[in-house]
């Protein structure tokens, strides 16, 4: 049984929680041209991704706007998996096909047949270890292994969207319910609880992880979104590079983290003001179950984006005092 967002959130931070995120999309890129193809598609340097590892990346359009943010898994030089947002599966697939050109790649959408179960929290390793012979100790953060969980072919990835140690499991959908139940059973003595997308959102927000459609969109490029570590202008040419070079030279906006000084809860789209002048808007906001404060991220004029800047958030036509703080609110606690 699901409980409440706060309970699920705190359980993830202190014990472990299991999330059904099968709605996420999985796109396979296979063939000799995979590396050069992906190098053109993403803003990060695919050559920096080692075999058996995954990393966070961004796909842009020619204007530098964000098509999607995703995780890329490198099985070998000729086989990659892109894990994309549910709402953008079709768009991403079309975007990849449209830019396939002469690259020697095959692009497959395996989203419908693939289930994804995340087990996150300090107890996650002990729980999953009960169900697999593969020694999870060997798996470092952002490494993955094609192995089995109770005889079911599974990709076990040590990664997640919560700021805790944990695993993302990819398996055939036919086996998902059985594996889900078995994990729940194995997790009983570790106080494992199922958690939903509400907790997933507050967990990622404490870590300042972007969520597509909020911090990122076709109108918000990754530089403005504050994830410039994903943009490698010095690598080979890629879609959106020219636009991003230009944006970098005269960047006007930046996504920042803030916390309310007064009691209150910032929400998406609330206006951000500095000295009564509108300087931006909240992209995500919530009550942090860990800090017990109103926290959020906002896209603001870069001239007012310094840490320590005092700002106001307009909540139902009342101004609430807030201050820009360093990202994230909660640092990764895993291995």
């Amino acid at each position, binding site marked *: 049984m699901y409980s*409440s*967002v*706060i309970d699920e959130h705190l359980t993830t931070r202190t014990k472990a929680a299991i999330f059904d995120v099968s709605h996420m999309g999985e796109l396979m890129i296979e063939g000799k041209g995979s590396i050069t193809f992906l190098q053109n598609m993403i803003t990060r340097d695919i050559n920096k991704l080692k075999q058996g590892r995954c990393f966070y990346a961004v796909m842009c359009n020619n204007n530098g706007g964000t098509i999607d943010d995703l995780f890329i898994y490198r099985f070998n030089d000729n086989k990659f998996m892109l894990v994309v947002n549910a709402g953008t599966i079709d768009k991403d697939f079309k975007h990849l096909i449209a830019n396939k050109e002469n690259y020697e790649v095959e692009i497959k959408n395996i989203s419908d047949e693939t289930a994804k179960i995340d087990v996150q929290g300090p107890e996650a390793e002990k729980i999953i270890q009960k169900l697999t012979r593969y020694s999870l100790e060997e798996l470092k953060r952002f490494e993955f292994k094609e192995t089995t969980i109770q005889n079911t072919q599974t990709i076990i990835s040590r990664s997640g969207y919560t700021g805790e140690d944990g695993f993302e499991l990819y398996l055939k959908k036919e086996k998902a319910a059985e594996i889900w139940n078995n994990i729940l059973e194995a997790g009983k003595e570790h106080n494992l609880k199922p958690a939903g997308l*509400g907790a997933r959102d507050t967990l990622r927000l404490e870590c300042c992880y972007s969520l597509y459609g909020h911090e990122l969109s076709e109108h918000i490029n990754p530089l403005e979104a504050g994830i410039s570590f994903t943009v490698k202008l010095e690598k080979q040419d890629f879609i959106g590079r020219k636009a991003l070079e230009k944006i970098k030279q005269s960047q006007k906006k930046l996504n920042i983290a803030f916390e309310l000084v007064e*009691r*209150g*809860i910032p929400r998406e789209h609330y206006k951000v003001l500095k000295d009564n002048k509108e300087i931006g808007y909240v992209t995500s906001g919530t*009550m942090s*179950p860990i800090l017990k404060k*109103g926290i959020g991220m906002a896209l603001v004029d870069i001239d007012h984006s310094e840490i320590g800047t005092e700002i106001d958030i307009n909540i139902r036509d009342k101004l609430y005092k807030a201050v820009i703080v360093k990202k994230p609110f909660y640092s990764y606690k895993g291995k």
Partner: protein
Amino acid sequence: MSNIPEQLKYTKDHEWIKIEEDIGIVGITDYAQNQLTDVVFVELPEIGKQVEKDKNLANVESVKSVSDVFSPISGEVIEANEKLSDSPETINKDCYGEGWIAKIKIKDKAELDSLMSAEDYKKLTGSESH
């Protein structure tokens, strides 16, 4: 089943009101707090505020959403439950007692006739929870 005390009056928007002579004590129902789950912030009305029946009296926020608390009656806010500023979760723990939101000096007692009895409210929530 949610708890619906007999002696209170209710609105279709899930507020309750307890009448003490010309004062009405207002809060949200057990059904409402259950639907909201964890209440994490309550925006209380200012003392002296003139409120109208069925218009915004306060706002109650859970992690995920903001909900209006509509005033069951017209009148003047004479007290707000300041305890909710520090402990908004009191609404989850004791919505009909310590979790009251505001006290209103009733302007027109005739308005009370349009409120729901416990029995009517039971029917409403019974049909909504199906």
